[in-house]
C-alpha cells in the first residue's frame, strides 16, 4: 500500500485522501438534489453531469483512502458507514443549495480551488494520486469554465439576478477560508511531496475569483472571517441530515448487497 513511500505518515495520507473524497461526495450530493428542479432543461443536464463527475471522483479518492488505510474497508464503507464526525469535507460544500445563484456561486468558489489543487496533485509523488488528479482535472476544468461563466452572466444580468448573486457571495464568502488552512496532516503531505500546502493555492484562487467577480460586476466581500471545522470533523448541523438521507438504506438494511 504505502510501501512505495515508506516515510509517509499513513494516517495523514488517509486524512488527506478522505478530505478530497468527502469534498466531492458532499458537494456531489448537494448538486444532485437539483435533479429535475433546475431553471432550464440545459441546467438540469449540466447539474446532473457535474454531480456525476463529483461522485465518480469520490469513488477514486475514497477508494484510495480505504486502500491506504488497509483496514478492509472500501469506498462505499467510507461513504455510507461513517458518522458525521468522521467526515472531513470543508463546511462550504455542505451549505444548503439555496437558490440557483447560491448553488452556482458555491460551485464556482469550490471549482476555483479544486482546479489548482488538482493541477498540483498531477505532480504528486504518489503516482496513484497523480493519476486520479489527471483524470479529474479535465472534468473540473470544465466545471470551473461553466460555473465562472454563469456567475458572470447572472452577476451582470438583471438587477434581480445581480442582487441574488451578490447575496449568495456575501453568504458563502466566510466559508472559503477553510480551503486554505493547513494543519499537521497537510504539513506531512507537503513534506512527502504528495500534496501542496493549501495556503499556496490561495493567491491563484483569489486571482481567478477577482477576475470573474469583476466581470460579473460583483463586489468582493470585505469580511475576512473564516468559519472552519469541517476538515477536522466538526461540521454544521446540515451534514447530519445529508448523511441521514444518503446512508438510509445501508443503515436500515445492514450488510445487504445492492
Amino acid at each position, binding site marked *: 500500500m504505502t510501501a512505495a513511500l515508506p516515510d509517509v505518515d499513513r494516517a495523514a495520507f488517509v486524512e488527506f485522501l478522505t478530505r478530497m473524497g468527502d469534498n466531492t*461526495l458532499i458537494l456531489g450530493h448537494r448538486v*444532485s438534489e437539483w435533479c*429535475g428542479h433546475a431553471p432550464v432543461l440545459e*441546467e438540469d443536464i449540466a447539474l446532473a453531469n457535474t*454531480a456525476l463527475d463529483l461522485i465518480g471522483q469520490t469513488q477514486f479518492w475514497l477508494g484510495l483512502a480505504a486502500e491506504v488505510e488497509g483496514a478492509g474497508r472500501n469506498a462505499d464503507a467510507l461513504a*455510507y458507514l461513517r458518522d458525521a464526525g468522521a467526515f472531513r469535507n470543508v463546511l462550504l460544500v455542505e451549505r444548503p443549495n439555496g437558490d440557483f445563484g447560491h448553488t452556482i456561486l458555491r460551485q464556482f468558489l469550490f471549482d476555483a480551488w479544486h482546479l489548482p489543487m488538482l493541477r498540483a496533485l498531477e505532480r504528486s509523488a504518489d503516482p496513484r494520486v497523480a493519476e486520479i488528479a489527471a483524470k479529474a482535472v479535465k472534468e473540473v476544468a470544465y466545471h470551473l469554465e461553466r460555473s465562472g461563466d454563469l456567475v458572470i452572466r447572472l452577476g451582470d*444580468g438583471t438587477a434581480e439576478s445581480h442582487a441574488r448573486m451578490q447575496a449568495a457571495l456575501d453568504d458563502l464568502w466566510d466559508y472559503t477560508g477553510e480551503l486554505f488552512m493547513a494543519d499537521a496532516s497537510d504539513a506531512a503531505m507537503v513534506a512527502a511531496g504528495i500534496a501542496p500546502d493549501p495556503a499556496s493555492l490561495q493567491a491563484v484562487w483569489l486571482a481567478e475569483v477577482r477576475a470573474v467577480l469583476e466581470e460579473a460586476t460583483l463586489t468582493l466581500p470585505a469580511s475576512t472571517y473564516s468559519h472552519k471545522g469541517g476538515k477536522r470533523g466538526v461540521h454544521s448541523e446540515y451534514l447530519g441530515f445529508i448523511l441521514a438521507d444518503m446512508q438510509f438504506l445501508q443503515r436500515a438494511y445492514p450488510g445487504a448487497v*445492492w
Partner: protein
Amino acid sequence: MYAQMVKTDSSRLKTLDEMSPEERAFQERIDRGEKIEPKEWMPEGYRKTLIRQVGQHAHSEIVGQLPEGNWITRAPTLERKAILLAKVQDEAGHGLYLYSAAETLGVSRDELLALLHSGKMKYSSIFNYPTLTWADIGAVGWLVDGAAIMNQVQLQKTSYGPYSRAMVRICKEESFHQRQGYDIMMKMAAGSDAQRAMAQDALNRFWYPSLMMFGPSDKDSVHSAQSMAWKIKINTNDELRQKFVDQTVPQAKYLGLTIPDPALAWNEDKGGHDFSEPDWTEFFDVLAGNGPCNKERLGARVKAWNDGAWVRDGLVAHAEKAAARRSGPVAAE
C-alpha cells in the same frame, strides 16, 4: 405510452379520392416509406398531431426525472448513485432532443412548457405513481423503460424525420436504462428476505400502471387509425401491450417474482399470454389529475419554472448587454 391518447382532429379517415392533390401526394410519400422533413408541405392535422405527440413525449421525459430523482440522494452505493444520475441525465437529454424535434414543427419549447404547466398538455400517467422504495427504481427501469422501449422501437420507423432520428438515439440509451433496472431487480431478488419482499412489492405496484402506459384499446379509435395512416403510430396499443407482457413474463420468472395477475396464462392458440386488463377507471382518474403524485409532479415542475424565472431573465439580459457591447457605442442614438 409516453404519449397516450393523442388526438388527431380527424372525425374519420379520408380516402385517397377525397384528398386534395397535395394531401394525396403527401399520403403517397408516406405509403412509400419516405420521411417527411421540416420544411416540406404537410397537412395541418399531421403537424398538430405530431406536436401533441412529440410534446407529450418530451414532457414525459422531463417529468420522469422526478420519481427517479427521488432516490438519487438515497442510492445505496456510490456506483448505483452514479448510474442513476447518468440515467436521469439521459432522460433530460431525451427531453431536449424531443423539444428540438417539436420546434421543427413550429412550436417553441417555452410554448409547450406553458401548455404543460397550465395542465393543457399531459405527460405519461406512469409518472404520477410514487417511488416508495429502492426496488421501485429497479421496477421503473425494468417495467417503465421496458414499456417505453416497446413503443419507441417502432417509432424509429415513424414518418417524421426529426422524430424518427431522435428515437434512434433515444432507443440506444433506453435499452441501457432497462438493463440497469433489471440489474437492480436481480440484486434485490437474490438478496435478503427484506430485499426480495421489496422487489415483489415494487412489481405488484408497477405492473398495472405499466400496462396502462400503452393506453386503452384503440382498435376502434379514429385517432389511432389516422395516426397509423400517417405512420406517426405504427402499432396499436393492444399489440404493444401484448408484446410487453410476453417479453416480461419470462423475465419475472427468472427473478423468481410473481406477476400480480391470477389470470395470467400462456395461450397456445394466439401464441401469447392471456392477462387481466388494468383498472381503466384508475387510468382516467390519473389522467384527470387524481393520481397519487399528480399534484407533486406538476407542482415541482411549475415551481422549478417559476423559481428559475430570474435565472432565465438574467441570462437573456446578459446576452443582450454583451451583444450591445459588441456592436459598440454607435448603436446609441
